[in-house]
């Protein structure tokens, strides 16, 4: 691809509620404006999560001639079939396999993006993101800041499947969002379903900041829902209230929300507790306002995630919330998280913060002081 021959022009992208200007390639095809997009995409089709991710990348490649996809085995679809058919459709110079070099993949993405190209890299499992950590934390996240905004690699998206899958063991199950969220300059996104995955991924690809996009691998095939077939974006940095309720606020993200929905059903069915369930969607920067507003209403909060308890992102949510909602809180905030152990193989079901553990927490905060 002859990058130098492409004309560079300015374009505007809505992100995080602001208009941010970035330099990008002129050929960028028109998109729906964010926010209104989901509503205008009328046609929907039942699809699973990997198909939704595939569609998002298909749209990105079609609408942006500088977009490239690379990673381990992605040319023939990747281990989870997310890139299936894209190499055939867009050519091997746009969708190609890399060596098993995670640090190389991340650095390569930064290079391509810093001259204006759109780089969609795949790290085959989130557990393998650690060899790429230096490039992500020291190069990718800081390029804009340390060059005084002369350079940036905002057009990078690194996709990585994360989370428990039932039998993944130590190295195919981890959720590293908290490590990444400790990095100013990085956007960290984790969708919960096919529909949100497609919209959030398109936003991430077009975001002027580098994004690590963590996909719950357990949902690739199992989560199926109607997804708009067209081009739409969901705003980054914005949480979604999945169910509104009045008694207790539950905060989670990613595939773990399936478990939390189950816990909410149990709480309602058994005890008549009305839970407000919030999906953060973007881990960094996270939507403080939505959660604060909810907790001021309910007075109680349970935060739950699959990653280990200590220094998990839940700790950040709790610390911020006690500051904003101190006088509204009616019970100590509960954290229901993975255990502080390496991700176990045979003990996965004990490790997981399942619906019962969450139900316990919900009833605990409801009974507090009674």
């Amino acid at each position, binding site marked *: 691809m002859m990058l130098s021959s492409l004309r560079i022009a300015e374009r505007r992208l809505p992100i995080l509620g602001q208009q941010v200007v970035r330099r990008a390639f002129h050929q960028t095809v028109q998109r729906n404006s964010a926010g209104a997009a989901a509503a205008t995409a009328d046609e929907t089709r039942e699809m699973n999560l990997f198909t939704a991710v595939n569609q998002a990348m298909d749209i990105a490649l079609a609408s942006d001639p500088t977009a490239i996809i690379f990673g381990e085995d992605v040319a023939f679809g990747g281990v989870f079939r997310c890139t299936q058919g894209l190499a055939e459709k867009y050519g091997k110079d746009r969708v190609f396999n890399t060596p*098993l070099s995670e640090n190389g993949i991340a650095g390569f993405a930064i290079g391509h993006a810093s001259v204006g190209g759109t780089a969609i890299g795949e790290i085959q499992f989130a557990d393998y993101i650690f060899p790429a950590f230096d490039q992500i934390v020291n190069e990718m996240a800081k390029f804009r800041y340390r060059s005084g905004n002369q350079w940036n690699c905002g057009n990078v998206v690194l996709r990585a499947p994360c989370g428990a899958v039932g039998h*993944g*063991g130590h190295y195919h199950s981890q959720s590293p969002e908290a490590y990444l969220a400790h990095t100013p300059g990085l956007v960290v996104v984790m969708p919960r379903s096919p529909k949100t995955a497609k919209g959030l991924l398109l936003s991430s690809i077009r975001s002027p900041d580098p994004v690590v996009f963590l996909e719950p691998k357990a949902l690739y095939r199992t989560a199926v829902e109607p997804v708009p077939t067209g081009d739409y974006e969901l705003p980054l940095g914005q949480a979604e209230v999945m169910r509104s309720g009045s008694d207790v606020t539950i905060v989670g993200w990613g595939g773990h929300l399936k478990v939390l929905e189950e816990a909410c059903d149990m709480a309602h069915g058994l005890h008549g507790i009305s839970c407000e369930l919030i999906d953060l969607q973007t881990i960094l920067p996270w939507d403080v306002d939505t959660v604060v507003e909810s907790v001021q209403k309910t007075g109680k909060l349970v935060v739950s995630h699959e990653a280990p308890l200590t220094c998990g992102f839940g700790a950040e949510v709790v610390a911020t919330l006690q500051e904003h909602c101190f006088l509204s809180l009616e019970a100590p905030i509960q954290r229901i998280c993975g255990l502080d152990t390496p991700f176990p193989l*045979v003990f996965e079901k004990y490790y997981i913060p399942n619906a019962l553990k969450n*139900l316990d927490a919900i009833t605990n905060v409801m009974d507090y002081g009674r």
Partner: protein
Amino acid sequence: MIAGTLLRRIATRGAAVGGRLPSVNAARYFSSNATFDVEGSFETHMLDTAPETTVECSKEELLEMFELMYTMRRMEITCDNEYKARNIRGFCHLYDGQEAVATGINAAFDPEDSWITSYRCHCVALARGGSVSSVVGELFGNIDGYSRGKGGSMHFYNKANYFFGGAGIVGAQVPVGAGSAFANKYKSKPGEKMNVSVACFGDGAANQGQIWEAANMCNLWNLPMIFCIENNRYGMGTSIDRHSSIQDYYKMGNEIPGLRIDGMNVLAVKEGMRFAKEYCGSGNGPMYVEMMTYRYHGHSMSDPGTTYRNRDEIAFTRSTKDPLEFVKKCLVDAEFMTADEIKDMEKKIRKDVQKEVLKAKESPVPPHEELFKHIFATNLEPRSGGIEYPPHIRMPNYENSFWIDGKKE
């Protein structure tokens, strides 16, 4: 490529180049040696010397190798079946096709030589003194497994035999191997033969940045380290010509001497590694060793292994280069065993493997407190009574709950 010249010698020249007792009966009923020709199995890089082109091997040793390799083969086939029956979960990488590599290295090594390898480690564990039941037991997640059922497929270790285990992250084992090579140098007296370290990794891992870092350290500090690349021609689903700019992996160390070995020929592997051990153990610094081999299965159990290569290629390798058929042929040509005797032996090994798998299945799952053990030196164990966990770890109260697995009872 030397892989193409595989298997030709034994057939054409016969096993008995020298050293063997002339009588067939004597050869079969008494301990005896045979000399095998392995010419053409090696290529060298930056080396003044080379491995011998003939290998002497006793009947016992060859039999032992065959037994180990056939056990490996049967075990991996059993793992395949058990995985498909959903008795084994997780990410499972099989070694069949590459048996000669681990077997040959083990034959050349002392138990005190350090060995660290990648996630494809079932059979290295076996070679390094493990039993089938402890390997398969680990895959089942049972307490008698190699790592107490806590790790699964990629996690076998044997401290007594200096086996530092499998490593789940591609290439991560190599710098660790460099550290163990330094330890081997550190603990030996000047001028003494050193124990060596070998770090095995695949062709796919060979371009990981951390391997270059380790290579530089080993060469800089003259460490007795063998970088052993098991070149099975595919880094997961990408062939070597598509993922590596250099396909002569044994030359990859630049100034580090290299040796390419026919990895389907267990005798060549043994002789090549003996040479490498001698070279590195004498203080000459590290060596890159490339084993030309092939895996029959896909990269892991979730890879059918046929999307990026065709079935003919696999069938062709099986029929022309199979490492087990090679050993069998050696046994017959040297008149150590008849074809019928080999068949009987195979039958026995198949039975033994079955027995071991049954034994592994009988082993119970680890008790709950194992979950909290071995995270720190001091265990976070349940307090006395065995049911109360440390206060910051909450377990659900299953007994008092109406809800089991999301269903109301």
